[in-house]
């Protein structure tokens, strides 16, 4: 067995505080990054970039954002796609009014706009919890849907109500092939993942988790609930906003308000439930699941038909819902911390092997 901690001792607190404390984890992650950055771009097909990797990465980013709020800070948001919509439309308007602005700047500004709105919709969390907060965030979703469908200014008075974007440019580089989009998104997602990891291991992350686990004790320690909750809403909405802007510009290219509907919001929630609440890794696992399952099912169709089972496309999409439903119920009841938790337990067993005590 190669995965273990035996014989790896930490002599400084700094070593102990590393994100990837175990050598094998470090190698694995660096290997994965090298593979994703150096091998995949040459080897992947356009279909793979467009249908799998790009949506997977962007949706992972949004799921991380939602996980910071729900999994780490214990607040609920049923309308997180609304913040993606805000990011997307903010980016669209910034590009319309300031053409030629570096896209990275556009992304950051879009994230900031979304963060501001996030703070606004986070205000109810100071008074209400749980189900009632859920309903308040749902109201945010419908309000935002309504605004982008009705207020023509946001869509630059386009007659159809939809908006379309030109290829993204920065530093004289035009990102137009799926491969280039993939590389750009990958780098953005890596940077934001690292930042999320840093936040949750810093004192701000601890104050979020303290609010989640025992709010009275957190207050007694001196944590301000308002600060903890609103920063969680802001950061979470920032992530969603950046993800939304990339979804609009790099994945869809042109979109209608319905692109960021309640269905999208619920999918994000499913991702973190299945992948793992309070886990960055879990956000990726959940996103992979939700993106890949429909594809896997459609691939499996001919196979099932060959086996003599008559499954048509309609049936397959029902099957998709049934599998999601079953998994969500399973994880909510049996393992609320999701696949990431199952994975962590397995790792912990291995980690001390061969001396479990």
């Amino acid at each position, binding site marked *: 067995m190669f995965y273990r901690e035996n014989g790896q001792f930490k002599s400084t607190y700094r070593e102990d505080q590393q994100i990837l404390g175990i050598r094998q984890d470090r190698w694995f992650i660096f290997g994965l990054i090298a593979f994703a950055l150096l091998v995949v771009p040459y080897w992947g097909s356009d279909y793979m970039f467009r249908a799998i990797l790009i949506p997977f990465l962007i949706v992972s980013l949004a799921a991380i954002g939602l996980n910071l709020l729900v999994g780490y800070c214990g607040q609920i948001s049923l309308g997180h796609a609304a913040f993606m919509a805000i990011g997307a439309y903010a980016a669209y308007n910034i590009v319309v009014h300031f053409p030629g602005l570096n896209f990275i700047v556009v992304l950051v500004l879009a994230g900031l706009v979304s963060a501001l709105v996030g703070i606004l919709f986070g205000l109810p969390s100071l008074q209400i919890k749980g189900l009632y907060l859920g309903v308040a965030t749902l109201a945010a979703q419908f309000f935002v849907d309504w605004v982008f469908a009705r207020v023509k200014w946001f869509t630059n008075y386009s007659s159809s109500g939809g908006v379309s974007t030109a290829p993204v440019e920065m530093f004289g580089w035009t990102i137009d092939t799926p491969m280039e989009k993939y590389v750009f998104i990958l780098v953005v997602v890596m940077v934001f993942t690292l930042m999320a990891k840093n936040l949750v291991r810093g004192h701000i992350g601890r104050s979020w988790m303290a609010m989640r686990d025992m709010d009275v004790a957190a207050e007694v320690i001196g944590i*301000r609930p308002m600060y903890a909750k609103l920063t969680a809403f802001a950061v979470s909405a920032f992530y969603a906003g950046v993800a939304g802007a990339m979804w609009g510009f790099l994945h869809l290219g042109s979109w209608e308000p319905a692109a960021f509907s309640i269905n999208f919001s619920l999918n994000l929630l499913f991702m973190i439930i299945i992948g793992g609440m309070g886990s960055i890794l879990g956000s990726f696992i959940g996103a992979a699941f939700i993106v890949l399952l429909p594809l896997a099912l459609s691939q499996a169709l001919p196979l099932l038909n060959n086996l003599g089972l008559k499954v048509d496309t309609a049936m397959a999409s029902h099957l998709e819902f049934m599998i999601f439903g079953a998994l969500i119920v399973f994880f909510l009841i049996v393992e609320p911390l999701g696949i990431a938790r199952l994975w962590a337990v397995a790792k912990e067993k291995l980690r001390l092997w061969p001396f479990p005590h």
Partner: protein
Amino acid sequence: MRPRNIGDVILDVKNISLSFGGVKALQNISFDVKEHEVRAIIGPNGAGKSSMLNCINGVYHPQEGEIVYQGEVRRDMDTHHAAESGIGRTFQNLALFKGMSVLDNIMTGRNLKMKTGILAQALHLGPARAEELREREFVEHVIDFLEIQAYRKTPVGRMPYGLQKRVDLGRALAAQPKVLLLDEPMAGMNMEEKQDMCRFVLDINDEFGTTIVLIEHDMGVVMDISDRVVVLDYGRKIGDGTPEVVRNDPEVIKAYLGVGH
């Protein structure tokens, strides 16, 4: 008897009344706490002891009275101000952060001392990193002091009850409080665990000079470690003085010591 150098009054509770609807939890309670002393609050179940601590650190807001802390007069406390001005607290029913490790629980107790902004933390810039390491070092002292080194990375929920109580104490200690409010720190412990906890409380008092306000049911413990005792019964104060005085007070004996002791 341990050598004592009790100082001036650091906390003065004046005419506090608190009620929940019809329930009068505290009625016109006054007492003071002197610097460096161990002050016990005793009384039967439901006497209002926990409510008293909750008023002192701003979890509850009394309808009447005032609290004078370090010379500053306040109608009532708010939790943030209490924490910031050095009032620490443990809980009668464990209130640990269940999803976090022992280390993170105690680190969170140190959060007030940590000031770097969100962006610096997200980017893990020099100041944020240095701050994290510096405070970690302090927290490690707390962990050593409480002898829970072996549990550093254990999720608190998986520890035995007695050790969870220690983590609760560690979380409060991490903020280096001037006044430490302990709500039944030894409840539900066996003899040995109680002795350990007693030793920690006395060491905190001796080594750091921390003023201690302690709620405890075990009269032996109270008589052993406290300098002065307040007795509450049904929200009223019925006794106040040294352990000897209180022990011999007829009203106290009738209301409290008489039953079951």
